[in-house]
């Protein structure tokens, strides 16, 4: 993907920067300007913990082209202690072992390469806690 679009997401992807709505207390990831819950516009800066629980998951057998060599891999919706949810791969375990309720922690990984000569894109993946 074009560099600016990747670069703009670095605070979200590298540091899990998020927002907390002053009105309703919801933690929003990624950071937002308007709370989707109460439409409030007063938001504090916060960060997510690097751990969570699997809410739901799947094992991808037919992957997008960029992820061909990694398939099959597990993907999960993970909820952090702050109540925010994020979509991520779950690795360093058998994909079939990833089930709702599993405790995970996050590790910094290379998420994708833009082919042979494009940029390298980093972020977090989940591993069994």
């Amino acid at each position: 993907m074009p560099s600016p679009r990747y670069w703009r997401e670095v605070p979200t992807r590298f540091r899990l920067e998020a927002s907390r709505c002053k009105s309703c207390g919801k933690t929003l990831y990624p950071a937002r300007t308007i709370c989707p819950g109460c439409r409030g516009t007063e938001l504090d800066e916060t960060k997510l913990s690097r751990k969570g629980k699997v809410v739901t998951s799947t094992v991808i057998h037919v992957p997008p082209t960029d992820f061909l060599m990694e398939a099959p891999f597990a993907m999960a919706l993970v909820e952090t202690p702050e109540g925010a949810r994020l979509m991520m791969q779950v690795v360093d375990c058998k994909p079939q072992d990833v089930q709702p309720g599993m405790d995970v922690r996050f590790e910094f990984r290379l998420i994708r390469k833009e082919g042979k000569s494009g940029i390298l894109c980093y972020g977090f993946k989940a591993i069994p806690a």
Partner: protein
Amino acid sequence: MSGIVGYGAHIPRNRIKVEEIARQWGKNPETIRRGLLLEEKSVPGLDEDTITISVEAARDAIDRAGIDPSRIGAVYIGSESHPYAVKPSGTVLIDALGIGPEVHVADFEFACKAGTEAMFVALGLVEAGRVEYALGVGADTSQGAPNDALEFSASAGGAAYIFGKKELLAEVVETYSYTSDTPDFWRREGEFYPRHGGRFTGEPAYFKHVEAASRGILKKTGLKPEDFRFVVFHMPNGKFPLQVGKTLGFKKEQIDTGWIVPTMGNTYSGSSPTGLAAVLDVADPGELILITSFGSGAGSDSFVLKATDLLVERRGRARTVRSMLDGPRHYLTYGEYAKYREKIIVND
């Protein structure tokens, strides 16, 4: 007095056994095991590289130091497998860990010595008073060519060291570097695998420089081998560090703790730095540690360190090297290993 205020290491969880590689090439695994004293090595996943390993190792170092990362004024990563040929690894690390933007960043290379090199420069800046804290990292995911001796040992992992002037976990007593132009192992621009001079990598390269640097630092400090509780050497295989240790007058008990190569393999720039981390995980206050790295090309950096009381207090804050070496891990077939190391020709 300057020294280490935080340290951390990271080792990927995939492994491949020496037998599995030997089977692939029709070699006798026993010969390899006995000849190189290797059992298995770590393998990076397709989603792991020098940058990801450095980030996780540095994160542990920051946790042990207990400092605000933004106070780190310099970040150096030494590796021979930086993910980009042009674009620094260090900049990804600083953004991932909340260091900077007021920070000096540079990537280092010198075959397997790039890690201690980064540490040497980080230390120097702190000693000069130019920065309050400086981070030096040695990490690698280097390649060994198929059906080459290096394939049995080339592995992945690394360690990170934060240097400062107060609340030291280990004092740096002295440093010594010994360098010469020796073409024992190299990789030309654009080549995928490195090449080496076979037996030339032994006596004129590894042994000459490791011995010279170690003897040099012993002379400079007036210390003798028996004064040290631990010694860590660069570990290209299991045999060389034991051999050079014996030549220099060290005993196996001094070498053992840092001798992690039989189950980790040779993580190149991460080799002796990770061995040092394994030592710091168990050293008692007041104990002296000698570390001598080796980088082909060629050169060695030596450090004499002294463990402090604070080391015992702080080291529990993050993962130990043994817990990563002995902990959950996954053994690969040669085919899976070849896929992860991108040794298989695929369509673009």
